[in-house]
């Protein structure tokens, strides 16, 4: 292929969709590296501290679309202190200087300020799409800037961000001439938006296909919107509390019946049971349904709804659906690929919930199932073995038994055999989360069989260092390993230090690794950043009388070519 002119090579590379493939071809020879770097349009950075932004922009001057991830995954569960880092500004600054043609930006778990958004909005004339997932640090003022200056904006997608409501009418900042919106998601905002402004915006954007409203949007407003946007494919309702005796409700039902293209529904904030009748006309076409923010909907009403959804591929629900409801899903939704069952009662004793029976029913009824997130109070080995047999196609399997260390309630045994069956059967498993009572044996199985595994989350599991060693030795494709509250210590940590350069990151909290062990790792591997998060009072300096035998409460290790980061707060020590 080196005899082909560059344009031909570039054309061939166009067929390579994934950044991993492109990364691979760029290492073949200098010529390919050269062609690939000038033709790469989509750049993905899995860890914002693995490389300096300037270096990324210098390598890919033709970059149009950038995706960056910041904080470690366990930040989602409050394990990473506020102010840890993950700032968007350096990336935006670098793009302003080097890639003014930037069109799309996606940030996940990063700190984004209003000033950052303002800079972004003013600096990229071709900007089309902004996606922020689990970010924080900005307010509706920043959104106002985006709306004001990004003429030609096609997508504004805000997923589960912490956004301060400054009450500014940010939605009104979309110019009258803005007609380009294809996707707008502000479901995570707490504040109100002007109903009239919203309705007019929707009416003048003929290409709008995805719209997700927040809780503050009333049913009356929803009705107006749905009536003006019958071509919507993806809708997140606002508040869905409406008295089903009223005309408003009747109109809503009529509007929904006109939405022939609607295939994805979510929202249902404050939905009360009878309101769901309005949605029945669209059920037959639904491929995606997210009812996981509607705690008032009980199993019977969910069942009535779901029993119409023959084409459903992705379902997110709360555990009040119960095993009975899952049985209905199993018999109705033969196309189901992804199921997530969230806990509805985190703070209480959890009366209504799902058990292993529901999961077994799903596994036998839904042969295409490949992605699972399941919160429950109990699980048995027998059930997991059955699930493994029924569903060998899992790529993501995340099981969360809500009581740590809970054994199989029937046999009182650990769940090693159950999870072992899963990894043995599901040869394409890429992501796995474990829970319940687990010994080192389960890690032996994972190391032996989970050859495609890329991400593993472990909590309250294992007996000894051997467990972690099995994982590091056996899982050749492991990229992210996150561990909390497990008896893994320095021996396991230091057993194969070179392994960590083949991975994106390692997180260990409340384990047995010591400061000395972490220092040893840092000394042996200069291209890893070994960071300790220390949260005890008044310990800003590493030197102050802290013995090497002291446990490292939270350790985050990641490979990097950027060296130690210069924005680490006082409580983060880079060894």
């Amino acid at each position, binding site marked *: 292929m080196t005899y082909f002119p560059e344009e031909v090579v570039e054309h061939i590379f166009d067929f390579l969709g994934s950044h991993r493939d492109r990364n691979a071809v760029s290492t073949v020879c200098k010529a390919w590296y050269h062609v690939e770097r000038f033709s790469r349009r989509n750049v993905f950075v899995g860890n914002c501290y693995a490389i300096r932004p300037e270096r990324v922009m210098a390598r890919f001057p033709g970059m149009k679309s950038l995706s960056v991830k910041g904080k470690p995954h366990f930040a989602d*569960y409050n394990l990473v202190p506020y102010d840890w880092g993950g700032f968007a500004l350096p990336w935006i600054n670098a793009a302003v200087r080097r890639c003014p043609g930037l069109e799309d930006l996606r940030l996940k778990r990063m700190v984004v300020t209003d000033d950052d958004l303002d800079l972004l909005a003013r600096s990229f004339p071709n900007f089309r799409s902004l996606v922020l997932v689990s970010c924080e640090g900005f307010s509706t003022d920043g959104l106002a800037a985006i709306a004001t200056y990004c003429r030609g904006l096609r997508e504004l997608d805000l997923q589960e961000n912490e956004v301060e409501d400054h009450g500014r009418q940010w939605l009104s900042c979309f110019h009258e001439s803005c007609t380009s919106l294809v996707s707008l998601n502000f479901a995570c905002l707490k504040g109100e938006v002007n109903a009239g402004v919203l309705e007019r915006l929707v009416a003048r954007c003929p290409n709008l296909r995805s719209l997700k409203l927040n809780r503050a949007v009333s049913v009356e407003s929803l009705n107006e919107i749905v009536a003006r946007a019958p071509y919507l494919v993806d809708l997140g309702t606002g508040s869905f509390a409406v008295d089903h005796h009223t005309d408003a409700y009747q109109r809503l039902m009529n509007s929904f019946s006109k939405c022939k293209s609607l295939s994805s529904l979510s929202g249902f904030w404050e939905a009360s049971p009878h309101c769901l009748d309005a949605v029945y006309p669209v059920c037959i076409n639904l491929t995606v349904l997210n009812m996981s923010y509607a705690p008032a909907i009980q199993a019977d009403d969910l069942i009535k709804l779901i029993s119409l959804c023959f084409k459903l591929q992705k379902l997110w629900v709360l555990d009040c659906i119960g095993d009975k409801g899952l049985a209905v899903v199993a018999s109705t939704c033969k196309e189901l690929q992804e199921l997530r069952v969230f806990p509805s009662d985190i703070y209480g004793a959890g009366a209504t919930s799902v058990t292993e029976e529901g999961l077994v029913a799903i596994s036998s009824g839904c042969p295409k199932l490949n992605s699972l997130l399941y919160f429950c109070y109990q699980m048995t080995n027998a059930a997991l073995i059955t699930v493994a047999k029924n569903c060998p196609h899992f790529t993501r399997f995340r099981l969360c038994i*809500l009581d740590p260390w809970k054994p199989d309630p029937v046999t009182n045994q650990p769940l090693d055999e159950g999870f072992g069956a899963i990894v043995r059967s599901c040869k394409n498993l890429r992501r796995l989360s474990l829970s319940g009572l687990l010994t080192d044996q389960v890690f032996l199985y994972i190391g032996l069989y989970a050859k495609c595994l890329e991400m593993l989350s472990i909590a309250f599991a294992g007996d000894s260092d051997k467990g972690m060693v099995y994982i590091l030795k056996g899982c050749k494709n492991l990229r992210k390993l996150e561990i909390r509250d497990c008896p893994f210590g320095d*021996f396991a940590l230091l057993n194969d230090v070179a392994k960590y350069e083949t991975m994106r990151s390692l997180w260990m909290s409340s384990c047995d690794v010591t400061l000395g062990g972490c220092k040893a790792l840092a000394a042996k591997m200069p291209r890893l950043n070994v960071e300790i998060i220390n949260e005890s009072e008044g310990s800003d300096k590493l030197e102050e009388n802290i013995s090497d035998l002291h446990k490292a409460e939270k350790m985050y290790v990641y490979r990097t070519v950027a060296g130690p980061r210069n924005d680490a707060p006082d409580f983060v020590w880079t060894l």
Partner: protein
Amino acid sequence: MSTTESAVSGLDYEETQLTLAPPGASRSELERKRGFSEGVDLSLETKDFLSGSSDEAPISGAGEPSAAKAQVVGWPPVRSFRRNVLKSCTYVKVAVDGTPYLRKVDLEAHAGYQQLLTALEEMFSCFTARNYPNETLVDPVNGTEYVPTYEDKDGDWMLIGDVPWKMFVASCKRLRLMKSSEAVDLAPRTPTGCITAR
């Protein structure tokens, strides 16, 4: 470096560890208990640091196992956004004596006791509400009278209507329509009931 490794991985270290369990307990059990209590300690230390953790379920003296669980930071692994949505949910379960099913009602969606009773009436559409002399609900089929009661934060079962509405919303954990015949030993109603005005 080697001294560090041998010091922490050698048998000596394990034997000298302080544990919660008696000497005869298996090692894996020991580790688990220590890990769990460390999890609890961590939450107490870092309560101020981490948003959300200080709002977790209060430590109830009633010996509910879930109270201890709630102290473990970051467990269950549910995103803050979702936690907050569920936390702000003021839905309470409604049980009716003699029927197996439960419903849920959003207390904050109603302005007062009158509206709540109307909602209950609608929910259990077999009942008709009778407002005088007492706030009761009647099953027209067999004439059984039901009295709406609620369990408050202290775990006591109270008659609805005694305290101001807002106080009720803040303290009500769940509702139960109790058969009048069984409601005899609940706290007697104050003569000036608060129901009508709100």
